[in-house]
């Protein structure tokens, strides 16, 4: 090969790089075989606590994943392909993502969806930016009951822009959107809410939707997709844009990633959607096929005028979501939501019966709920961790006046026995 190039050594090829620019250090260990590497990794993983029984959520959920999801997503042709820029040899990815978009539309009750964003929090930030573009306004109202991490991401995204973000402190225990509605005026681009919210409460946002629409703004609903097997959709609630984190749809916990962000909107906003969109079309012979469409919104064409800078998305995770939803099917997915609902209700009632423990949510909840303890929740959680149970998310770090509150998550994976044990453990922790 060197001969063909006309050089005598590989070093010659690096000659354009002046000696003064060369690396001053490259102090890395020697390589190892895959067997040694795997042993190292397994030893490392073993340093994590094993077999914690987990009642924590906070945006990431411990759900069952049918074996087919791994099996099918692992197909090399999906796994090792790139972005489907050459559609004729990428129909696999393209059709799958079209099917994914369809699933997201049907879940959220909205018209159009993209082919995925990074995660739930960044999807909310993108929705905020999208609402600003659509309305041309510079003010946003966000419910304090939105996941605090997601709110922080929105703040980060908006920090350098000339935009005002109004955070409405949550009113735990009395899910009332009055304070949100009070913040609406003709300058508000959108109200951003979450359903079920960070405390687990399920709300009816129809009145809020009507009022923000009347004021010329949009309603953005961040949703937890498993709840959509049971709970009224963002579309039914009147949302213009829905977002969410797709992790719970067939993506493992994996210490926080990768998952995917879903986004859907009313049809009229399609040109303002960020990220890739797959569209149906036909080929020269009239055969159905799928392509990346409306690419003129995207960075590789529009550069700094693009709707977003996103390029790589989370395709494979979205594919997992599609396969997950397809494997459960219409009934199975509804059943999954119901299982989550029933198990959490069981736990909520059991915890609510403990002396000194108060369930804070005034109305309905879905698979998580907030209890107030007679003690500092952080201490209780730390104590229970030592017993092998992750009891929930103590709220003190996120809502300084809620130091005794704890958000408890119960998915379909928690058995009645685990719940009963947990209730006893918590009771014990409160006695000490």
């Amino acid at each position, binding site marked *: 090969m060197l001969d063909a190039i006309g050089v005598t050594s590989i070093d010659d090829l690096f000659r*354009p790089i002046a000696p003064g620019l060369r690396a001053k250090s490259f102090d890395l260990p020697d390589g190892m075989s895959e067997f040694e590497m795997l042993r190292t990794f397994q030893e490392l993983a073993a340093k994590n606590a094993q077999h914690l029984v987990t009642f924590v959520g906070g945006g990431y959920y411990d759900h069952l994943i049918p074996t087919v999801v791994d099996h099918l997503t692992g197909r090399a042709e999906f796994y090792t392909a790139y972005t489907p820029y050459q559609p004729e040899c990428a129909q696999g990815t393209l059709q799958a993502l079209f*099917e994914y978009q*369809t699933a997201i539309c049907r879940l959220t009750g909205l018209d159009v*969806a993209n082919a995925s964003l990074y995660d739930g929090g960044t999807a909310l930030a993108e929705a905020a930016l999208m609402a600003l573009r659509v309305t041309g306004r510079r003010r946003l109202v966000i419910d304090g009951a939105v996941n605090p991490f997601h709110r922080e991401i929105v703040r980060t995204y908006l920090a350098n822009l000339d935009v005002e973000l109004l955070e409405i402190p949550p009113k735990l225990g009395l899910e009332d959107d009055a304070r949100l509605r009070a913040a609406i005026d003709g300058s508000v681009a959108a109200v951003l809410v979450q359903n079920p919210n960070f405390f687990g409460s399920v709300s009816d946002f129809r009145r809020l939707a009507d009022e923000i629409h009347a004021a010329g703004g949009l309603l953005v609903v961040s949703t937890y997709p498993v709840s959509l097997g049971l709970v009224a959709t963002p579309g039914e609630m009147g949302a213009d844009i829905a977002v969410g984190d797709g992790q719970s749809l067939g993506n493992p916990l*994996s210490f926080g990633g990768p998952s995917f962000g879903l986004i859907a909107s009313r049809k009229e906003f399609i040109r303002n959607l960020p990220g890739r969109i797959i569209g149906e079309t036909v080929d020269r012979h009239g055969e159905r096929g799928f392509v990346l469409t409306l690419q003129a919104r995207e*960075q590789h064409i529009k*550069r700094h005028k693009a709707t977003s800078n996103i390029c790589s998305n989370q395709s494979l995770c979205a594919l997992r979501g599609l396969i997950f939803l397809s494997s459960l099917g219409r009934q199975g997915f509804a059943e999954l939501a119901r299982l989550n609902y029933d198990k959490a209700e069981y736990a909520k009632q059991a915890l609510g019966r403990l002396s000194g423990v108060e369930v804070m949510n005034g109305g309905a909840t879905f698979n998580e709920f907030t209890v107030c303890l007679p003690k500092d929740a952080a201490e209780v959680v730390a104590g229970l*961790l030592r017993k092998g149970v992750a009891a929930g998310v103590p709220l003190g770090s996120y809502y300084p006046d809620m130091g005794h509150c704890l958000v408890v998550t119960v998915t379909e994976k928690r058995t009645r026995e685990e719940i009963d044990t947990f209730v006893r453990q918590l009771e014990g922790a409160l006695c000490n």
Partner: protein
Amino acid sequence: MQLIYEQSIPGRPGVSLPASDVPPAAGLSAELRRAEAAVLPEVSELDLVRHFTLLSRRNFSVDTNFYPLGSCTMKYNAKAIEEAARAFVPYHPMVALLPHGASYCQGSLALAYELGRTLTEITGMDEVTTQPLAGAHGEMTGIMMVAAYHRAKGNKKRYVVVPDSSHGTNPASAAMVGYEIITVPTAAYGDMDLERFREVMTDEVAAVMMTCPNTLGLFNPHIREICDLAHDHDALVYYDGANLNAILGKVRPGDVGFDVIHVNLHKTFGTPHGGGGPGSGPVGVKKELIPFLPGPRIVRNDDGSYALESALPESIGRTAGFFGNFGVMAKAYAYMVMLGRAGLIQVSEQAVLSANYVMSRLKDLYELPYETSCMHECVFSAVRQAKNGVHAIDIAKFLIDRGFHPPTVYFPLIVKEAIMIEPTETESKETLDAFIAVMREAAELAERDPAAFATLPQSMPVSRLDETKAAREQNVCFGSW
């Protein structure tokens, strides 16, 4: 091929769930319930498996086809790294954020931290955040830190400078952070025009974003000068790591003068692209930017344990949910651990050798807009073929029929009829030779029978698709629901 929805039979059960072991609870009130269950596919597990298995086969992929996409580094993804990442699948990220939770996640935190340390050594930076979820996300995160830096210093900055050969994400990311963009043209020698750069370089410039080697595959000989010039105006210099595969162990952006860098783990460090993602875009910074890194930060205590630091008053804040695309990070770290120092150097040497080999074997038939020795990729132009009506995209379709994924043909925008080839270090000479032969065949056919290209590709499940119709009709969701 039918859609999965078209195969759906109402009432057909899919994968079954465990029976409930708790009593059924009182339901939600009507206004909180969805009116009708979402119309998801109802297919048997066999039909599900057959659908997605057959669907997968309608893709080209690295495991089935040579995939010499420029700027994308489609190298082989070792199967062992998948196994490595699987070890970390069961762990919940929120546990780390619970009171004293870090001690229950020492393995995961160690991995993320050590990956970061490895990346600082590779890039010559002082500190790394693994939080960004993709390259563009890293760019945005990096530019946000730049903005925070200037804000902290009271600098008034308005512009970000990019060369016209830059990736679209560079200006798009800078725009997300509220900057205006100044684009500098490429000079005849294939790099950003130094004179024009000097003209635009004022105190109002917040950052200069460079890809080096650039998207023409060329290493900019003036790169230190550019850094110095920027620094003279207290502008920071951003290194787009998309092309890092060219210079591992050879050049460290930090040594040259760059202040911020993002690395595409899914390009340089061998993790699979998954049809467009997930990627992972850690960002490295020099000392002066450390206070602005997103939180929570993973730190190493003196006793060797790992912890999270959340009290970061100057931090730009979170840019993503947890600690990054951890599964991707684990794979990339596994890749680095397997290759080690010598292996990583060999990566770049072999990648550059392969690109130069392909360039040398095709330059008699295809125009080289900037003739010089290239780094890890080379950019041809099909202008000679275009004279006969055969465009770069036609050559791409010819390649598809011969089992090769086409090179990048829509980019870089500054080269007409661009054909951007990045062979990577993992392809054997035999594969390169087969590709070269087919590229030569295409050039010859373009001379002999240019009309033959119009109906290509012919061997795929679909022929050329009507993109205009797709954009017009905006049919992005199946059926009514």
